[in-house]
């Protein structure tokens, strides 16, 4: 990475071509993302190091086989797909910034909406990585490319997921890229070039998480997943985790940088989470009522998850931790006085975030396989390789999220202009 050469002064009467200014814009982004305080360099170095540990664990897994994971023919998806599911929600949750900003013309949100869009970009990159590390044969990824391979669309829900996730990535790259580029040029963004795309992104956000839920709910042989409530539940919990993450991000930015964040923006998000967290809990309760009141063999997974089955109870601590965290967070969000302390708001956000992460992963993907379709109980607990790869992808996601904010903020504030 090299520093951009100083732009030659432009004659005022001749607008320069995009062929000249756009590469210059990209170079400026790179330069901004790699410039920062010593703390910034330390943070980025730590994230890079963790990412490299993950990359090494993944490369070893590809070479020696997925035997290095704890997955089995009984529990054939584990920590990777659990994280994938959760992070699709995080990506979709970013849209909860977009709706108030553009649909309700909330001024405070307008200034910070880019955080949601950048989060979406980082999260989708993480999703694609989590799917890739879960493949037994990543060298054959081209078999999935339309035109080159055989893309089983529209029958396989996984092909739909490939389309909507990549589409969401492109949409958000366009919105962020366009807004930043016009700011860089010192022009006003033209509504027709981004507003329709912003509205599209709202629908698209819903679609990515709906399609991801359909991956599981469409499987008749897995009673825990085979529920019409799965997609709405996924959306509700996504609209908890996404805004919670952004609230904490805004507090961190306010604390560590001179970026001024309007407290009204935080309040808007708090109001959103206050409602979505209750909707999510309500749906979890409805699901459990239906399962346990009716009873029978098809609720074995739910029984295993919540109470243990035939002496096996590996996931019981996980799910009760998740329920506890979600309930405590819900109560905190409902309490107006709690919401006046940034520390407590952040704590509530972290509780909700971790609670949803468990609920969707170790509390949903894994128990879907236990007991197996022949009612055998084989338990699962992630291996060191899986934890390393997972930590690596999270670190890489945070790395690009941080770098994007680092580059975007000075441009948005008009500190970095072409020429």
């Amino acid at each position, binding site marked *: 990475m*090299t520093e951009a050469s100083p732009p030659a002064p432009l004659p005022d009467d001749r607008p320069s071509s995009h062929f000249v200014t756009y590469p210059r814009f990209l170079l400026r982004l790179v330069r901004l993302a790699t410039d920062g305080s010593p703390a910034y360099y330390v943070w980025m170095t730590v994230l890079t190091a963790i990412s490299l540990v993950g990359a090494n664990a993944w490369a070893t897994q590809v070479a020696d*086989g997925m035997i290095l994971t704890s997955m089995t023919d009984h529990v054939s998806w584990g920590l990777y797909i659990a994280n994938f599911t959760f992070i699709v929600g995080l990506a979709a949750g970013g849209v909860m910034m977009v709706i108030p900003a553009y649909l309700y013309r909330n001024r405070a949100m307008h200034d910070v909406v880019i955080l949601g869009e950048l989060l979406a970009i980082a999260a989708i990159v993480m999703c694609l990585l989590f799917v890739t590390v879960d493949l*037994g*044969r990543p060298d054959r990824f081209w078999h999935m490319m339309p035109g080159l391979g055989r893309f089983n669309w529209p029958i*396989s829900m996984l092909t739909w997921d490939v389309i909507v996730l990549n589409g969401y990535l492109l949409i958000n790259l366009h919105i962020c890229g366009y807004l930043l580029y016009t700011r860089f040029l010192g022009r006003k963004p033209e509504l027709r070039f981004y507003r329709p795309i912003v509205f599209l992104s709202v629908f698209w956000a819903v679609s990515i998480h709906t399609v991801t839920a359909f991956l599981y709910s469409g499987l008749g042989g897995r009673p825990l997943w085979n529920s019409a409530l799965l997609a709405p539940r996924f959306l509700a919990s996504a609209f908890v985790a996404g805004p919670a993450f952004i609230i904490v991000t805004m507090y961190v930015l306010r604390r560590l940088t001179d970026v001024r964040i309007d407290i009204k923006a935080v309040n808007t998000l708090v109001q959103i989470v206050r409602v979505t967290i209750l909707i999510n809990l309500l749906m979890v309760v409805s699901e459990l009522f239906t399962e346990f009141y009716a009873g029978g063999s098809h609720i074995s997974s739910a029984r295993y998850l919540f109470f243990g089955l035939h002496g096996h109870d590996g996931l019981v601590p996980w799910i009760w931790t998740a329920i506890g965290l979600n309930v405590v967070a819900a109560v905190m969000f409902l309490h107006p006085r709690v919401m006046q302390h940034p520390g407590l708001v952040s704590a509530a956000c972290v509780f909700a975030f971790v609670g949803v992460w468990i609920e969707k992963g170790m509390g949903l993907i894994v128990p879907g396989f236990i007991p197996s379709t022949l009612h055998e109980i084989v338990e699962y607990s992630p291996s060191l390789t899986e934890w390393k790869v997972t930590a690596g992808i999270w670190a890489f996601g945070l790395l690009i999220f941080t770098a994007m904010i680092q580059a975007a903020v000075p441009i948005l504030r008009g*500190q970095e202009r072409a020429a």
Partner: protein
Amino acid sequence: MSDKNPSSPAAGDRPVSRRTLAKGIGTTLGLGAFAAAVSPLMRRTSEVSAAEFMQQHYKDLSEDERAEVIRRLEAEALEQSGREVTIRDQAPIPGTKFGYAINLSLCNGNGKCVEACHRENNHDRDTNQSYIRVLEMQRGSMDMEKGNTTYDHTVPAEDKFYLPVQCQQCDNPPCVDVCPVEATWKEQDGIVVVDYNWCIGCRYCEAACPYHARRFNWKAPNVPAEEINPDQGYLSNRVRPQGVMEKCHFCLHRTREGKLPACLEACPTGARIFGNLLDPDSDIRWVLANKQVLVLKEELGTVPSFFYFFD
């Protein structure tokens, strides 16, 4: 995190600033560390030949290309295990749709079918893999939750019956629907097959199957050279690569040539009946006509070609 002192244009006056130099060094170190971190991938690339990487889907290969692929696979098998094997590409027989039935009154859970499958299909020795699982079930109940697959006592046990389960070769197979790359499909004779050279190893089919019929190669299978069954089929029992899915294929390398599946031949009780559902004189048709048969998890609408009955 934000730069309190954004680099002013003046900072760029010198052609190479100290910061640029530091960035250059950092980038070089980072790239070097990345290359070192992913270096285990090199071990894998030496195992996957360019021809294998470029190979097209089974259905897109011409006759000549298939022959070429098979020659390559045979050569690779010889090189890797030192064993001469013959891989053929048996086509479905027109007018044939295979069906399987098990007489649960005769099956006594001895597990010979499980072993025969293990040997016939070149399964991994380390994990003792097989396409068949036998559930020891409680008499008077079809509830699998009361079943047990890990029994190791003398059979048959008091008050138990035995339920062998393998791929049900569904007419409406959920595993085929979910595959994102069409690496698994249903053949003319009803057998659901996997192209081991096309599967990307996402394991969505394994999640979708309601019968636990699919097996994943979590590592490269280990079969000692002298134990390898050299009579192999491209879509059936050839030694599978690492990281791909496999499943019961009704021993198509045998059954498409008029032989019976290995599990049937090994069964000492005569509980297994196999044949062509389209042939009115076949044994399987006699069973369907004269016995009260049932299929597993009928309510899921998978329409199995695998039947069970009690005498």
